[in-house]
């Protein structure tokens, strides 16, 4: 029985620990699973970190991976979700020659129509920032590429889930033990 490969967003709540990134990435490396993106930040709870990891795999394997991640001592809880179960976005930046902004009126239209923000402008260059789905960012990159991009960078996915992840309850339960 061949299971479909799907995109899963793995959310991991952890103690704030330097070594944990190593432990978590090793779980993927050992199994030859490519990480599409990995983002780590503060979570909604003070002192608790949140990893958002995007992978393409079968649901069976996503389940196994999540339990291997949860097995790590400093992991509080890990979940996996499909795209439909999350609200997600990526962010990107473009550095472009300033002269183009004035020479090519088309660029100004692209900026307006794509809901892109100008972060800074100086004599040499200006910087654009845009958040959105991958296809929106890709289409913007194609449009701007025609005029020449000095630098382009895109972040990993960040996501929140539609259902609840009861981390606060888990931590309260521990403190009341």
């Amino acid at each position, binding site marked *: 029985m061949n299971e479909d490969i799907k995109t899963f967003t793995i959310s991991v709540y952890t103690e704030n620990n330097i070594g944990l990134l190593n432990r978590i990435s090793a779980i993927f490396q050992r199994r030859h699973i490519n990480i599409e993106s990995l983002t780590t930040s503060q979570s909604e709870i003070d002192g608790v970190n949140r990893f958002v990891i995007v992978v393409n795999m079968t649901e069976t394997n996503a389940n196994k991976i999540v339990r291997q991640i949860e097995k790590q001592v*400093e992991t509080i809880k890990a979940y996996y979700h499909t795209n439909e179960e999350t609200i997600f976005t990526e962010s990107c930046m473009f550095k472009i020659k300033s002269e183009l902004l004035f020479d090519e009126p088309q660029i100004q239209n692209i900026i307006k129509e794509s809901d892109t923000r100008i972060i800074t402008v100086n004599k040499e260059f200006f910087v654009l920032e845009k958040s959105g789905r991958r296809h929106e960012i890709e289409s913007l990159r194609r449009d701007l590429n025609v005029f020449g991009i000095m630098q382009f960078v895109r972040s990993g996915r960040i996501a929140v889930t539609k259902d609840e992840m009861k981390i606060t309850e888990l931590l309260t339960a521990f403190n009341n033990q």
Partner: protein
Amino acid sequence: MKTQTINNKQELAEETQRITGSEAIVRSLIAEGVDILYGYPGGAIMPVYDELYKFQDQIHHVLTRHEQGAAHAAQGYARISGKVGVAMATSGPGATNLITGIADAQIDSTPLVCITGQVFSHLLGSDAFQETDIVGISTPVTKWNCQVTAAEDIPDAIAKAFYIARSGRPGPVLVDITKDAQVTEFDFKYKKCKGVRSYNPVPKTSQEAINAAAELINNAKKPMIVWGQGVILGQAEDELKAVIEKAGIPAAWTILGASAIPTSHPLNIGMVGMHGNYAPNLKTNECDVLIAIGMRFDDRVTGRLDAYAKQAKIIHFDIDPAEINKNVKVDVPVLGDSKESLGMLLEALNQNSHEAWLQEFKDLYAIEFEKVIKDDLTPAKEGLTMGEVLKQINIESKGNAAIVSDVGQHQMIACRYADFNVTKSNITSGGLGTMGFALPAAIGAKMAAPNREVVAIIGDGGYQMNIQELGTIFQQKVPVKIVVLNNEFLGMVRQWQQLFFDKRYASTEMTNPDFVTIAKGYSIEGKRVTKREELADAVKEMIASKESYFLEVCVEKEDNVFPMIPSGASVSDIRLS
């Protein structure tokens, strides 16, 4: 890297005292009840050794001859006692030499705390003398690890290390401590760790899962149990025995589960796996309910997965949620501590017996006896077999010895034929298959259980991987018995070369030294046996000896271990020859 002990529940143990970090390390070990540790000094750990010198009336440091020996000795100590084994080493090569033992402890769930010295914190990352990133190196093979760079973090790090090593599914933990943290003074107060908020070591057993398991078992016509080390680690031997007896279920064991139930128990049907017994392997694919308890469906146990117990409903008892459905899809998972969950299962089971089903196992045993066991234990040929050596050891030790085996043919023979009356008696490297394990592990086992007979069974290959530990036996006067079954080959690899590589014996033949003379060099009494008529007396003399004793038995060079499930084959394809 700060440890997250702020979140831990702790209890007050001692009053505050101003001492150095290194004294704090030793006092922390004593507070955790450590009486023996194994290790090797060096530059980055010297302040701690200076304190061990001062505290030698309270804690006994055993100088091994290699850090790998220290790690395996600590494992042997832990495996026979159920307590946490402790190993210590300096930075750099000292620390990396521990790694094989740590990896072995990780895959075999052995509680270990390893303490390594590290260069001064201001030198970290500068490629200083004997600096290595041991936290990075040990990460994939430890349950938890951390680096301490400040003296005041030492007690909490060690408290957390012991708690994590021993709780839940046990495992090895490494604490790396920089030299500046060792020499700095601070106000010491030791509080034992009672919990880590991100870590739930023992999932609660659900009554619904127990009920579902009991219903399957109560209605089963051909139930079979396969238990593993989880029963020993959970101290659930009595509960397992009660379950087996109440429901009348034939029960087999994995290599690390051996000895949890005495060999002579009528429902003990032997070992599963590649060189396990004929009946339990074949019956795995005939039973209607397979009850796996504290075992992890290792590939050496299951053989080909898509032909493993497909006809059976599978119940899996385990403490580790990551093991459920990892290799084999199960029908009823039962999470929790084995002692608690088997106790609950016992309540829910009906009194039962399966005489006809049990008879099928006996019939298959008779076939295995005729085709394999008889020739192993009472050979008609001239050459000595490994099996008859084990038989003599059983006779002389009356099945009460702890058998510490290395890795290879002799290990399979030892596990197949040793009589076990007492639990925690089969100490061997199961998951990692570490040659060189047995000699140092036997040292640790004997020191942890001085009243028990400890017999190391080792091949001529593995013996030479940590033969330097004879020096530890000599210096510490450890009355461990060493049996080398010498076939002048790396026997298991040679067996595979014979069966699967057309007898091309690439680099498996060994020209060996005079092992008895080597033992005598360490003042260890020794004897070499080459003839059958000498064997019984030699084993008798060895077991009767009050001191360490070395026995070399020159066995048939090209014997094979059977039964055998060839690699990648199904358990049903088990071969008797």
